[in-house]
């Protein structure tokens, strides 16, 4: 139980951090596709007899690369969908060849937080550390590129390079979280808490901190509820993600309404905070 608590907290921190950029970039589809497709890697790993985490890592990275490379020229959402179904098709093949995999499928989709062994703690924590470190190193360029891609490009932050880096981070987060909490749960965590956080505040750092905090609260509440009611944890995470998002949207709507008359207020605010001046690099 204590293990579950620790691991789930680690996962929540990673989901809060990575999810913040997922929401900022509007990359919900990618956050759904990479974990879901990587599941085929787990099936393949079982087939050839290597550790699940290796299969997950290889497939999530391959998926991220495919999306990045093909998405550069094509429509990125169509490319994401095609990459996802191709990986799932491979997963169907692996499953059909190895016949005794069904319970494992269920646990990979929905996770088994409550059944975590102490030996899984160290690798999860290490990967989480790497993931957060990478995001910390990339924070400024990734932030600028996500919000104002054109300005970023003018300052030498390649849009495509940042997209690839971001996809790699999602792949890394997938590799560490899926064995623990399952593909479906990590998706809800990466979307719900950060989306709510974003509608609660306008400041990036505060939104990031809030996103992590909300993800932690969601996971803790879900574990407690799942423990007492015996219902699956994924249900509570999914429901609370949707509820958080609804509350966030409601909050934003109330705040907008309170700022009436909107046009004048917005103009006044704009004057108080003139847009950032860009230093011209020569």
């Amino acid at each position, binding site marked *: 139980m204590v293990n579950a608590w620790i691991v789930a907290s680690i996962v929540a921190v990673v989901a809060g951090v990575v999810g913040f950029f997922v*929401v900022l*970039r*509007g*990359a*919900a*589809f990618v*956050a*759904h*596709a990479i974990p879901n497709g990587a599941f085929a890697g787990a099936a393949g790993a079982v087939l050839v007899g290597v550790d699940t985490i290796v299969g997950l890592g290889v497939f999530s990275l391959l998926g991220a690369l495919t999306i990045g490379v*093909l998405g550069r*020229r*094509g*429509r990125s*959402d*169509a*490319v*994401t*969908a*095609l990459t*996802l*179904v*191709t990986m*799932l*098709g*491979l997963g*169907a*093949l692996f*499953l*059909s*060849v190895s*016949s005794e995999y*069904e*319970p494992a*499928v*269920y646990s990979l*989709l*929905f996770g088994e937080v409550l059944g975590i062994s102490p030996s899984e703690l160290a690798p999860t924590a290490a990967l989480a550390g790497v993931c957060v470190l990478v995001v910390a190193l990339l924070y400024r360029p990734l932030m600028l590129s996500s919000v104002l891609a054109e300005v970023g490009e003018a300052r030498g932050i390649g849009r495509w390079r940042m997209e690839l880096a971001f996809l790699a981070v999602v792949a890394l987060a997938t590799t560490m979280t899926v064995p623990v909490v399952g593909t*479906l749960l990590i*998706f*809800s965590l990466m*979307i*719900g808490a950060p*989306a709510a956080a974003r509608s609660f505040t306008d400041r990036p750092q505060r939104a990031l901190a809030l996103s992590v905090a909300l993800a932690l609260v969601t996971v803790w509440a879900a574990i407690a509820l799942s423990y007492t009611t015996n*219902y*699956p*944890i*994924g*249900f*509570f*995470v*999914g*429901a609370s*993600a*949707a509820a958080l*998002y609804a509350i966030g*949207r409601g909050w934003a709507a109330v705040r907008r309404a309170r700022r009436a008359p909107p046009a004048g207020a917005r103009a006044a605010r704009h004057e108080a905070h003139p847009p950032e001046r860009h230093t011209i690099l020569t």
Partner: protein
Amino acid sequence: MSHFLAPVFEVGFFESDAVRTAVIVGAAVAVVAGALGVFTVMRGQSFAAEAFGDIGTSGGSGAFLIGAAPLVGFLVFGVLAAGAMELVGIQRARGRDLATGIALGAALGLAALFMYLDSTIHNTTGVVVTILFGSIFEIAGSTIPLVAALAAAVVAVLLVIHRPLLLSTVSPEIAGARGVPVRIVGATYLLALAAAVALCALTIGSILSTALLIGPAAAALRATRRPGRAVLLAAALGVAAMWLGIVLAYDSYYWPPRGNGWPVSFFVVTIVFVVYLLSGVPAWRERRRAHAATARRAFADDRGTPHRATAG
């Protein structure tokens, strides 16, 4: 004839009822998916198409729980989700993807709950794999009329709204100015998509549903700029991929490991993916030719003049 084609079609292909059903249903589904897919790809709503498949999973497991037909569960959940997405109704693609993601997350949470209840009440989790990976060889012949009716309904809706839908896809502003009810048209399209995905996911599984909706349409839109032609091409590509996949899957029963066929979904998805990659080849060659021409010109201009790399 069978003499020449013996290496292609293994013994008993044309005699099998399961294969006949699969060929008919597969073609019908591929045509509907191709037509609807062109609009889905143009509107950038691939995520919604994929999400409806997964959302249907919760509908299917919920229906299993209360003993209703899976199609009812798929449709009810699809319609509810379409309503939720439309209600959030953000027009920008970024916010729309987020709304789709939230609806998907909530539905998957429900799916987890329903499957847990299924496994405690009915003592089986087999329904998970069946719904996710569905098998076209396991369709009962009796479902053909139902599938045909639903497919016809979707195509009819599409025929009615295709002009305003196309306009409001390409330019919502112009459509609005011309009096097209953009939002209603969009909602109608979303409902048609939900119904189509329910149809596809139930007959061929949710993986193939997404593959057939997005793949042929994306490839067709790279090959032609005309929507009408793209619809025809997408439908044709979808049917071809489906049939080729069925033939290969049938033949694969005779491949190693013997007696254990490879899944249809694997073949169809792979074919679709390759077709999409091939559809990018002309544009890629065009770009290469353009690069080469630019380089040649610059090389000619550069003759005799010293380096000017750092100028500007």
